[in-house]
């Protein structure tokens, strides 16, 4: 019995001896502007790199995919830490320019495949941030001139509006809106009213024998107003290409209004000011056309329709935002109603959804675009996997991702062709919509391969305290900042990730730049119309 007790004691001791388990590292969160987390990053390139590497390691949602594609994140650490340490070498007093720092980071970050990732890293010597967008660099590198051509040539439908109803390419009905269109309309109409008023005043004074001592100064001001207003009108067409140009135009318009305020009051002409919101990029343009009388076309600059279609109008009915809200409803409504009417009359030829140069946006738009053609109740588009946990390969269970479809009674388009026009600058929701079209039996994709950014991100970096992934740091505040994928989309039965790849069209049609610049004709759009016509 004594021996038995000895054995038991021996075994208990053995248990205690062997029961040590190697523990893991304790990690710091880089989610917020935490002094301790970013302390080393503020004073050392190597410290900044180590913290950035770790933050990426914990937050970036597709490391498995990157490894499949040949990127070894551990090797990046081993290979690049000495390079950053060398920058800290005080004895050599190396001057690190912003370009040097960006080039060094781009050496390994440009390999990333995610289509949304946006990174910002501070140069501790210059105190300036360098921006890195790996997907933009990748697309520019891989797609060459087409990348620039497609972006720079934003098509309009002016040529097709000149054609007759009998022409396949003829846009019988047409309507459009957008903040820039509204701005242009406001400036143009205000200037026109002022010119008319001023010219009438000048004519009246001239008729009365010319200016006298009482109206001389107003008369001179009116004569100056007319050419100034005409100049402003003329500049509209040339000042709408970028948001900076639009902002500058609006600034000029506001100065013009301020300088001529008394004259405008005298002429009883209102000079509405343009809301800052209208000058931003958040208010998209929407175009509708009815080609050949039976092909309903919708184009929009970004997935932000639902903010207007789903929401109540602003209370101030005199505001330009109200006008914009109404116009978006009107233009989209024409597209939707045309489909309903033509379908009911068995006359619908097809539908074209144009997402070229569409940078994506809210999934709330799905019911108003492809979802308006699919049955109510949602569409199981793909699978979703979420980055959860601090481990590089920690993911959530895979869940089906159901996109919302139009909930009210509507025609389901199952027979007539649904064509989606895409290009390299079709990103995110544009690509998810393209996938949806591709999966329909009557769906067809025309254009060039899409951007390759189909995963989704946190709505806001401030969500980090809930999600613990999808971003790190604070933009323009912490030594580095990252906006990285958290929700990974997996497509098809084989659950493939399409980041950095995009969606390949059923029919590859590159934009014919000469055709566009010389004749203002859009060969991609015409390919879609030809396809529907020949169906």
């Amino acid at each position, binding site marked *: 019995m004594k021996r038995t007790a000895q054995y038991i004691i021996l075994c208990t001791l053995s248990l205690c001896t062997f029961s040590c388990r*190697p523990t*893991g590292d304790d990690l710091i969160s880089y989610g917020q502007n935490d002094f301790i987390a970013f302390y080393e990053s503020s004073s050392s390139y190597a410290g900044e790199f180590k913290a950035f590497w770790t933050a990426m*390691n914990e937050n970036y949602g597709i490391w498995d995919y990157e490894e499949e594609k040949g990127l070894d994140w551990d090797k990046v650490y081993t290979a690049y830490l000495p390079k950053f340490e060398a920058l800290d070498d005080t004895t050599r007093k190396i001057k690190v320019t912003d370009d040097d720092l960006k080039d060094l980071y781009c050496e390994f970050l440009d390999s990333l495949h995610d289509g949304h990732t946006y990174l910002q890293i501070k140069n501790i010597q210059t105190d300036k941030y360098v921006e890195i967008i790996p997907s933009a660099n990748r697309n520019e590198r891989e797609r060459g001139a087409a990348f620039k051509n497609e972006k720079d040539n934003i098509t309009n439908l002016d040529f097709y509006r000149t054609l007759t109803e009998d022409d396949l390419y003829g846009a019988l009905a047409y309507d459009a809106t957008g903040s820039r269109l509204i701005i242009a309309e406001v400036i143009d109409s205000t200037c026109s009213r002022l010119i008319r008023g001023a010219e009438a005043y000048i004519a009246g004074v001239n008729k009365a024998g010319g200016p006298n001592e009482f109206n001389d100064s107003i008369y001179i001001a009116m004569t100056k107003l007319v050419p100034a207003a005409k100049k402003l009108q003329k500049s509209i067409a040339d000042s709408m290409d970028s948001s900076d140009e639009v902002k500058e135009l609006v600034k000029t318009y506001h100065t013009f209004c301020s300088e001529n305020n008394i004259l405008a009051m005298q002429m009883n002409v209102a000079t509405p000011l343009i809301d800052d919101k209208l000058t931003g990029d958040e208010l998209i343009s929407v175009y509708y056309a009815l080609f050949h009388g039976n092909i309903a076309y919708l184009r929009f600059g970004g997935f932000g329709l639902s903010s207007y279609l789903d929401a109540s109008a602003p209370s101030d009915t005199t505001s330009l935002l109200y006008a914009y809200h109404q116009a978006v409803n009107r233009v989209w409504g024409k597209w939707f109603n045309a489909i309903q009417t033509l379908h009911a009359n068995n006359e619908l030829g097809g539908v074209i959804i144009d997402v070229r140069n569409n940078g994506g946006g809210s*999934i709330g738009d799905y019911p108003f675009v492809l979802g308006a053609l699919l049955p109510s109740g949602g569409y199981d588009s793909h699978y*979703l996997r*979420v980055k959860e946990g601090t481990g590089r390969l920690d993911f959530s269970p*895979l869940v089906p991702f159901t996109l919302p479809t139009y909930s009210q009674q509507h025609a389901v388009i199952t027979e007539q062709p649904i064509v989606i026009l895409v290009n390299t600058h079709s990103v995110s929701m544009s690509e998810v919509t393209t996938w949806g079209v591709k999966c329909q039996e009557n769906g067809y994709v025309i254009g060039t391969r899409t951007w390759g950014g189909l995963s989704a991100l946190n709505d806001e970096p401030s969500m980090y305290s809930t999600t*613990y992934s999808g971003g790190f740091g604070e933009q323009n505040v912490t030594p580095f900042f990252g906006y990285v994928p958290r*929700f990974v989309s997996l497509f098809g039965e084989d659950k493939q990730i399409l980041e950095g790849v995009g969606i390949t069209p059923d029919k590859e049609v590159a934009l014919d730049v000469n055709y566009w610049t010389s004749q203002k004709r859009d060969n991609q759009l015409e390919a879609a119309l030809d396809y529907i016509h020949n169906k």
Partner: protein
Amino acid sequence: MTRKIQVLLCALLLCSALPVSAQWRVGVSGGGDYNWFTINKQYMNNYHYDGAWGWSAAVFGQYNFKDWLGLRFEVEASERNHRVYRSGMMDGTNYINRNTYLQLPVMAQFSFGGEKVRGFVNAGVYAGCWLAGRQQGTYKDSFSGNTYRINAPYEFQKDKDQRGDFGLAGGIGMEFRLVEHWAMHIEGRCYYSFISTVKPYMEHVKDNRYNTTLGIQAGFAYIF
């Protein structure tokens, strides 16, 4: 896996060559277990990992060198489950990771007491293999706000998931001799894994996660 089975069979054959005066027994056992998952959840405050119940079933053989000392070896299938749930805004995610292991405990058995009722203590080691995983429950996707019911096999990640397992096995129980050749037993069993369920796939970050399983099982043995 095949190699491990071969080793076990060889051990059984060697044991069979031992003196016939020694006592052999074979039997089956089964029961339930409760597994704790040890993980450093770091700063993720609204993540919670709880233990979860599972089952176990085994066939075993035992060779007694003396009336108080035996060598016990088993082939056991068991679950080592744990629950993952989230609180706060992510409330709605609540699922069980069901993990089925095949394991081979080899233990010394120290017994004491009378002929009819004997107490025993098992102490030894085990080697195991993570055969399959399944995730069951609900998952709230914070992107759409939808909560999905999930019940799908876990897809192993070859770079991350550690299939192999090794650790300490031990138990304490009572055996009741029913008739001359038959006995039944109940036992409280513990498996304490030394092997992280995650491979050291990150060179510069150490992240270890372990299972500890307590089970209660009952079984019958035929005593030769």
